[in-house]
């Protein structure tokens, strides 16, 4: 935490806008999203369905669904090189190599017609590896807590439980010692006891291999427990970003505050749950200016303009005019 402040970022996402082609032309799904992840850091990207967190994460490996999805503008720098400008060859060496990916539904992400062994060995076909792949996958299965590797290796996905499949996916993502692990809702389909096992496993591996983790989730509790930095997305924009400790102590954006208040709390005696009125808008219905203003209890006149991400403490930024610095008139920086 905080210890990576000065090092070179591993991943830099700069002003990334992603669009999808629809009946009425291309609709922008995300709007100039920027964040950085340093080596060994765990970054939690949080938001509700449709906020653009998953497409952002898919675009990092150029995995946006074709046809339809495309990057409209921005840059994605991995170790300083723009992923969006890479050739297929370069991309292939990145995917499953330097960058490992864990998907939300392990049952859907694995090939149902292949036994686990064949799937785990696949990354080695595309990447140089010194050593015995067979040995490597066995030691990884052991590492992810699979007690009977022989049974699992010869099994087909349908023969394994969700928790086992997620472990297999993590093992696969780790085959080539990635320096960045992207986990899109890695435990959403799992029970809490299995979730705790999987998250602890990712945490151990992060410590052991110094891999950075980008965790995409709707669960703020998970972010609180397992991330160093957090970015909150709403309606395609990053609305607040900062170190998790500071974010939890000093939550600034009304949407972030709303998310926390709506969360059922096991750790609070009162168990308060305040709903956020209204609903998450669809991209075609995004408001001009601040996109949260129709649901925001604090909305005031400047919110008709688009707020910048204003600095709000050490490494903490917030896109809300309540926190606009003094002397920066709200209307000035606005482009809406």
């Amino acid at each position, binding site marked *: 935490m905080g210890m990576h402040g000065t090092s070179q970022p591993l991943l830099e996402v700069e002003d990334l806008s992603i669009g999808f082609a629809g009946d009425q032309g291309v609709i922008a799904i995300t709007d100039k999203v920027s964040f950085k992840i340093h080596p060994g850091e765990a970054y939690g990207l949080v938001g*509700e369905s449709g906020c653009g967190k998953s497409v952002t994460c898919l675009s990092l490996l150029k995995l946006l669904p074709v046809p339809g999805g495309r990057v409209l503008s921005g840059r994605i720098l991995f170790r300083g090189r723009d992923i969006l400008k890479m050739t297929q060859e370069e991309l292939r060496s990145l995917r499953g190599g330097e960058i490992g990916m864990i998907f939300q539904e392990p049952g859907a992400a694995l090939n149902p017609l292949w036994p686990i062994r064949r799937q785990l060995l696949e990354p080695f076909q595309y990447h140089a590896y010194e050593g015995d792949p067979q040995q490597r996958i066995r030691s990884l299965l052991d590492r992810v807590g699979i007690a009977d590797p022989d049974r699992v290796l010869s099994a087909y996905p349908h023969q394994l*439980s969700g928790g086992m499949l997620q472990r297999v996916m993590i093992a696969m993502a780790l085959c080539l010692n990635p320096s960045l692990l992207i986990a899109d809702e890695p435990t959403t389909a799992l029970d809490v006891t299995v979730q705790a096992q999987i998250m602890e496993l990712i945490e151990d591996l992060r410590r052991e291999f110094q891999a950075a983790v980008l965790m995409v989730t709707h669960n703020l509790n998970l972010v609180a*427990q397992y991330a160093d930095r957090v970015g909150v997305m709403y309606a395609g924009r990053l609305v607040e970003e900062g170190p998790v400790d500071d974010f939890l102590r000093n939550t600034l954006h009304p949407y972030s505050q709303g998310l926390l208040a*709506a969360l059922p*709390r096991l750790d609070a005696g009162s168990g308060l749950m305040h709903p956020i009125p209204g609903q998450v808008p669809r991209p075609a219905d995004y408001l001009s200016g601040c996109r949260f203003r129709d649901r925001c209890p604090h909305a005031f006149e400047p919110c008709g303009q688009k707020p910048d991400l204003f600095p709000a403490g050490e490494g903490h930024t917030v896109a809300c005019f309540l926190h606009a610095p003094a002397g920066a008139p709200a209307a000035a920086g606005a482009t809406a």
Partner: protein
Amino acid sequence: MTTVQAASRAAAAPSRQGAPLLEVQGLKTWFPVVGGVLRKTTGYVKAVNDVTFSMHAGEVLSVVGESGCGKSTLGYSILGLTPPTEGRLTLAGKPIDIGKPSSWNGFRKDFQIIFQDPYTSLNPRHTVFEMLAEPLRAHGICASRDIPDKVAELLKKVGLSPDYMHRFPHAFSGGQRQRIGIARAIGLNPKLIVCDEVVAALDVSVQAQIIRLLMDLKSELGLSLLFISHDLSLVKAISDRVLVMYLGKIVEAAAAPDLFAHPRHPYTAALLESIPTLDRARRPKLLGGEIPSPVNLPAGCAFASRCPRAQDRCRKETPALFRADASEAACFYPIGLPPVP
């Protein structure tokens, strides 16, 4: 702003006196496992395996547990949607002949259900009006000419505009669809609603809206809710009592404040400890192992293989649901209490 908590507690702690609204005794729902060319029954998945509890009017009773523990099957069995194999079921004081599917017919009006998935539980070819009018007509709730007014009233009650009446489900978001599901259930003035993971598919901000709506309606209409959920944080906020299920059996039954303050069964404690919270100083604890197959249940306590407190006795004898201070726990060595003799 009232909170969900306040709404739930406002209706005063429901009385556990008098005749229960729902009585379940020794309920079993077993699914045969068939194998081989002759399709012989080789065993049973004991989804619900000897469950006993009762519910009183106005109560919010939650059934929690991990996937496969039988909590949804229990809800379905009570309503006859998945008829139980064995046991006794008494709805509103009247015994049900569990061998006869039609014996539930007289109770459909009073015992309703809201399903988990708002995307598949509404007929895509029916308008909201058709979906809400059908049960009203079938049960003769109001005269035909009054149905449009009644449907409009129901929609208003769940926070939807009556203008939406002639739209199809695809025009609605997940939260709005779940509101339609709620409108459909309350239209018949039921006594009890089984809520099967009703907010699991919704985002947190919408989840809180739906829960609040349910709790408000509960107080307003004097409903009882059998709330089936895997989300213990949510259950903590809304329940009067909680049943914890593991592999088809109730392992702990307690008033919600007791259960969360003093879990007695090691499984309940492990579930609570595995949940991440916003408190960064408290790390979730791990429960090792996986749930055994419900087809080949081990001898003794089904949780013994994963239990940090298990002794020899636990692998030989099956614990009944013993009284454990203010709670009941199916454990010989309840947490914080002397062992069961």
